[in-house]
């Protein structure tokens, strides 16, 4: 969303109207916040959950808890935190994680994996989508909390402070989870390399 649009939208007035049960204001608020919420939902979408359903759940929580918003943090940060915690609740609810198998990869994904495991060359820009799909499959092998941390650190390139603000976890805990996640990914890559050699 552009800065012009952000500047034109009077968030404080809109929130006041929403608190007074103004349905039009509620609709405007949803439209204003949707890009922020949907980006978080898409980044942390669990399997078999529709992004629209999850976004709706986030917005319902926002409206239900609106009375608790004291303005200590900017409103978009408060909404982001609700979105992140809703996503992680859904990720935790997934009891089983699918096994990562080379045979399940598409041709492009297998090529990308082969390239990063064996070649010195960078992955070509044309294979960026395949790389992202592959990253998503690898991240599914991690525990939900570890997955969230490594995704925010490595993929979204957020700082420890930003992750801490979004999740409510301490930076020490985030570092521990990132270490655990990287160790698990390392083991996974080692297994894949052994299979590649054999």
């Amino acid at each position, binding site marked *: 969303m552009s800065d012009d649009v952000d500047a034109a939208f009077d968030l404080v007035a809109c929130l006041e109207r929403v608190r007074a049960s103004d349905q039009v204001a*509620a609709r405007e608020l949803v439209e204003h916040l*949707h890009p922020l919420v949907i980006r978080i939902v898409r980044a942390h979408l669990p399997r078999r959950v529709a992004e629209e359903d999850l976004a*709706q759940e986030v917005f*319902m929580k926002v409206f239900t808890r609106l009375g608790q918003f004291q303005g200590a943090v900017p409103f978009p940060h408060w909404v982001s935190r609700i979105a992140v915690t809703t996503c992680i609740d859904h990720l935790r609810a997934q009891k089983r994680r699918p096994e990562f198998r080379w045979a399940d990869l598409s041709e492009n994904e297998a090529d990308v994996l082969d390239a990063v495991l064996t070649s010195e060359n960078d*992955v070509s820009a044309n294979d960026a*989508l395949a790389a992202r799909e*592959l990253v998503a499959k690898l991240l599914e092998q991690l525990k939900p909390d570890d997955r969230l941390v490594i995704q925010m650190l490595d993929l979204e390139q957020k700082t420890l402070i930003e992750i801490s603000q979004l999740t409510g976890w301490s930076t020490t805990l985030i570092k521990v989870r990132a270490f655990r996640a990287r160790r698990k*990914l390392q083991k*996974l890559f080692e297994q894949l390399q052994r299979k590649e050699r054999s």
Partner: protein
Amino acid sequence: MKTPNSAWLRLVAAARQAPTSGDDSAPFGFSTRVAALAMAVERPSMHAMVNRLSWRALGVALMLMVFSIAANYSAVTVVSESDQDPLDLVADVLTSS
């Protein structure tokens, strides 16, 4: 041969180049539906909360009452049986006179 860590870093670097998927704006009807749902959900007022807590307190009090009666049932029955044969001092005085 690349080390596993550098393989991961190269992979995420490539993944970051992928274009972001789709339009970020709300789909048609989404905001109207969510706003209607949000406004339909009754926000708990102070009166409703006190009302609900009162019913809960009444329930807890009833449970405690039943529990205390059950726990002291034997003591109550012993007392009531002894009450059936009290010392009737007035009758004794009347009969003696």
